[in-house]
């Protein structure tokens, strides 16, 4: 694993989260009907930060949940390593809600496809909007994000590594060459 460049630093991530929070509130005209859903693992922590920021701006906290999409993956037969499943934790009703689906990196779009199926099994939301910290391109499915922290054009041999203090001890986004394993 070779680091090519540090693309976003700690302050950059903080400012990006602030902007995304404002954009989400502006587009949805407040947070009455909003549910923030973070996709495990890093989407969960970005969603936490967005929730904090939104409640700082608006004064009240939006509903919140965590989604594990492992059971909805389409690549079980193609991966060498069996992915580890963890628990989905969504306690609120999703029917007729406006859902902000939150992940760290948007790449092939296959995780989002799985997440959409998973959300549909949990209820019938009014809308599902996608919010990502980084969009690195190379989509394999007709999926696009509604809120994007940063567009980072990449080559297929590169990888985007989002590091978050909660998990990795630092806040930053790196561009990395020749990934060890496929990740989406």
């Amino acid at each position: 694993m070779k680091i090519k460049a540090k693309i976003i630093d700690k302050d950059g991530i903080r400012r990006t989260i602030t902007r995304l929070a404002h954009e989400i509130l502006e587009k949805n005209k407040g947070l009455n009907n909003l549910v923030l859903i973070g996709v495990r693992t890093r989407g969960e922590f970005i969603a936490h930060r967005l929730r904090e920021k939104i409640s700082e701006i608006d004064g009240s906290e939006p509903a919140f949940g965590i989604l594990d999409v492992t059971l909805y993956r389409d690549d079980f037969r193609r991966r060498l390593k069996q992915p580890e499943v963890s628990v989905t934790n969504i306690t609120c009703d999703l029917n007729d809600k406006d859902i902000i689906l939150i992940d760290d990196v948007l790449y092939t779009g296959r995780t989002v496809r799985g997440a959409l199926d998973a959300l549909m099994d949990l209820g019938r939301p009014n809308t599902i909007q996608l919010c990502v910290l980084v969009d690195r391109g190379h989509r394999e499915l007709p999926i696009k994000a509604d809120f994007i922290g940063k567009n980072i054009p990449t080559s297929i041999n590169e990888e985007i590594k989002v590091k978050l203090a909660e998990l990795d001890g630092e806040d930053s986004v790196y561009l990395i060459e020749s990934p060890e394993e496929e990740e989406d």
Partner: protein
Amino acid sequence: MSLSSRHLIGLFGVPKDDIQNILDTAVTFREVLERPIKRVPTLQGKTIVNLFFESSTRTRISFELAQKRLSADVINFSASTSSTKKGETFKDTVRNIEAMKVDMIVVRHESSGVPQFLTRISKANIINAGDGRHEHPTQGLLDMFSIREKLGKLDGLKVCIIGDIAHSRVALSNIYGLKTMGAQVSLCGPPTMIPRGIEMLGVKIYHDINKAIAENDVLNILRIQLERDAGTTIPSLREYHNYFGVTSERLEKYNPNILILHPGPINRGVEISSEVADGPYQIILDQVTNGVAVRMAVLYLLGTMN
């Protein structure tokens, strides 16, 4: 993380990491069972055959539900309606079923060793749903899952299995699994129901139910097989109840904090009193719910292995 074997024949020799992995994965499926749509697409396109050569209600329904909730295609086969009745050998029956391209076989048979034999004649993943007096690994796993869910751990717990140990595959799977996970396992019952030499597995033996209740954290009560036992291993069902029946008087007197498990079907007034079977100590119906989650975990881990 993948399991170290592509079959589940028994819990004997299954490493701690594998058991831990299955129990942790079952937590995920427990959540799926609480959803409005209790189905995930994970095993779409996989074909699973349930080969039941011995009657079963709970285990068969539990496996079938687990398979359907993972979106697998399920075929049920029971011996009474099959061509084994017409004289076909077991091996030929299995070969024919396998020729129809199945991915996994769940098997129950009255003879010990049939699932092991299947692993040699079939390419499918084999899951043992109970074979003779050998093992019933998914029951052992769901018992461990239920204990862990209730008490938060297995390591260091004292668990006593009560009843007809000699004829019980549930007892053996419990002994192997619990010991691997660090629990202390003991057995309790009349000497006619406890096989000689079983202490070699590292289990303590009680013949006094009161003492067993007093000294353990968990009781796993086995069913007395009404159709077989009375008159052979015990004088009468009433006598068994008097000496080994778990009653609320005994629990209140000797250990009011104990946790009661029973794999079912229960015989009220024989091995367990109605009061205990419906009372605050037991988690009998949680075991049934957890059984589906644990079986989903096993099917998922074996079915998505490469």
